């Protein structure tokens, strides 16, 4: 887009087109340039407007949440920090996000630690979940064998996985490994299930085309199976990511040390509720942003 824009702009002074000429549909680059410019600006306008509209909806949604929060503060929870006091605390926390002091570690560093942990746990989990899902989607034997296992493991709470993992990883990494394992094992399932569905649901028509036109196994994988399964895989990853981010807080509360979840818990224990709620806000906003990233990927995949 930007490339087109620069080309057209550089051509405009070289051949100034009169409006009359521009209106004529035929000759010359001038008309084409103007038409192009008009198209671009129309697109930008439409784009800008839809952006403004979604911004407005976002603002309305946030106001609703803040109002509910404020009402809760005024009625049931007198000790609950109000939106305003939380805001002040948040600003204060964000003013020095990378404070390396061990006792008042900056919120940015805490967040970074959590994100790193989630990335590793979720990444490893996906590396297991996607092949596992493909296997379960492609083979009846694998499905029969693995489905009951996943059904049993899936509902187990991270609060139980963590101590279990602590025992298991006593010799191998201890707490750090246990946190990662807890994230991995709880966030695995949506990707497994969704991938398996994507792989097993390739329409009969496409499989017939592949058979009639002698597609090799590799061609079938690359041109039929994966393109069909991709949106399902991404949807699975999106849900898994949500769970990983949900679980990180729980594991950090149990494991202690560093991280945004631990920060919330620690603030609660220290009686600084504003900090705790500020951490909750940060957790929520980061969760939203992570979800947006996957939403974007999903849209790109579906458009292709």
């Amino acid at each position, binding site marked *: 887009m930007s490339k087109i824009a620069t080309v057209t702009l550089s051509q405009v002074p070289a051949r100034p087109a009169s409006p009359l000429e521009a209106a004529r549909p035929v000759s010359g680059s001038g008309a084409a340039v103007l038409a192009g410019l008009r198209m671009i600006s129309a697109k930008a306008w439409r784009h800008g407007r839809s952006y403004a509209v979604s911004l407005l909806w976002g603002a309305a949604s946030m106001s609703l949440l803040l109002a509910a929060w404020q009402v809760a503060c005024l009625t049931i929870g007198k000790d609950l920090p109000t939106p305003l006091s939380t805001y002040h605390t948040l600003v204060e926390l964000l003013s020095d996000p990378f404070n390396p002091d061990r006792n008042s570690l900056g919120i940015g560093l805490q967040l970074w630690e959590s994100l790193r942990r989630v990335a590793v746990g979720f990444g490893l989990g996906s590396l297991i979940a996607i092949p596992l899902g493909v296997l379960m989607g492609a083979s009846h034997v694998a499905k029969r064998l693995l489905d009951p296992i996943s059904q049993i493991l899936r509902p187990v709470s991270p609060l139980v996985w963590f101590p279990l993992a602590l025992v298991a990883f006593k010799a191998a990494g201890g707490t750090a490994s246990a946190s990662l394992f807890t994230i991995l094992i709880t966030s695995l399932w949506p990707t497994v299930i969704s991938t398996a569905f994507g792989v097993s649901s390739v329409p009969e*028509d*496409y499989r017939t*085309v592949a*058979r*009639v*036109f*002698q597609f090799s196994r590799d*061609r079938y994988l690359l041109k*039929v199976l994966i393109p069909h399964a991709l949106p399902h895989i991404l949807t699975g990853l999106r849900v898994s990511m949500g769970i990983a981010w949900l679980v990180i807080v729980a594991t950090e509360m149990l494991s202690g040390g560093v991280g945004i979840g631990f920060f919330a818990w620690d603030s609660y224990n220290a009686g600084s509720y504003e900090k705790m709620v500020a951490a909750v806000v940060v957790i929520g906003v980061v969760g939203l942003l992570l979800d947006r990233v996957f939403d974007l990927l999903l849209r790109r995949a579906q458009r292709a």
Partner: protein
Amino acid sequence: MSVYLRLDRLGKEFGRGREKSVAIQDVSLDVAQGEFVALIGHSGCGKSTVLNLVAGLQEPTTGQVLLDGNRVAGPGADRAMVFQNYSLLPWLTVFDNVYQAVDAVFGNLMPRYRKHGVTERYLRMVSLWDHRTKRPSQLSGGMRQRVSIARAFAVQPRVLLLDEPFGALDALTKGSLHEELLHMWSSEAQRRPQTVLMVTHDIDEAIYLSDRIVVMGNGPAARVAEVIGVPLERPRDKRELMHDRTFLLIKERLLELLEEGFSKPTYQSEASAA
């Protein structure tokens, strides 16, 4: 007539035990090379089953399909298919939908540039070369079917299997696609004759396009009811045909056969109700 494609007492059953149903029974047909044969009949008469057996997508329960003397034992590059619902891969461009088939079939037999050339040739034939970067969802039904036709021709099969290819299209689009199909079929024939087996339930279409029409009886356990030759000179003119005696006679006979088959079950159900 030298036989090129032989359907030898084909029978196909689905399911087993109590669920068992016989789709077709004892279907025999000899087709010469370069012949255009239409299979016509009511829905559920097993026309598509016959086509799938020839394609090698299904195994016959009894009998066999012989192509140039060899038993058909699965799908093969010598037979290509056009489907009623186009069956294009939605994530591939128009070009790639054709190219992937060409590449799959010719593989190492042709250098890449030749495979590109073949793809271009057939996309140009259906006048879709300018639309090659589009995806199927950006095309109309008629255009999609043309991509599908180009794909089938591009792998240069010896037998072309058309499964109600124009069933989902409006009359005008259908008409122009008939012309395009015949044009491609006859221009291919100059290099080597291509045998066509087409399933349809459109009587006019069957007469206009084919050399012979195979009328299937009603299912279950459908058999060939009658085979009608179409001794009309090619190239044929649709408007002239409307008044052609031979055309009208064939049409009348087809209507008779198909309505006979159509009215029988109705009559029976009335009788049993009474």
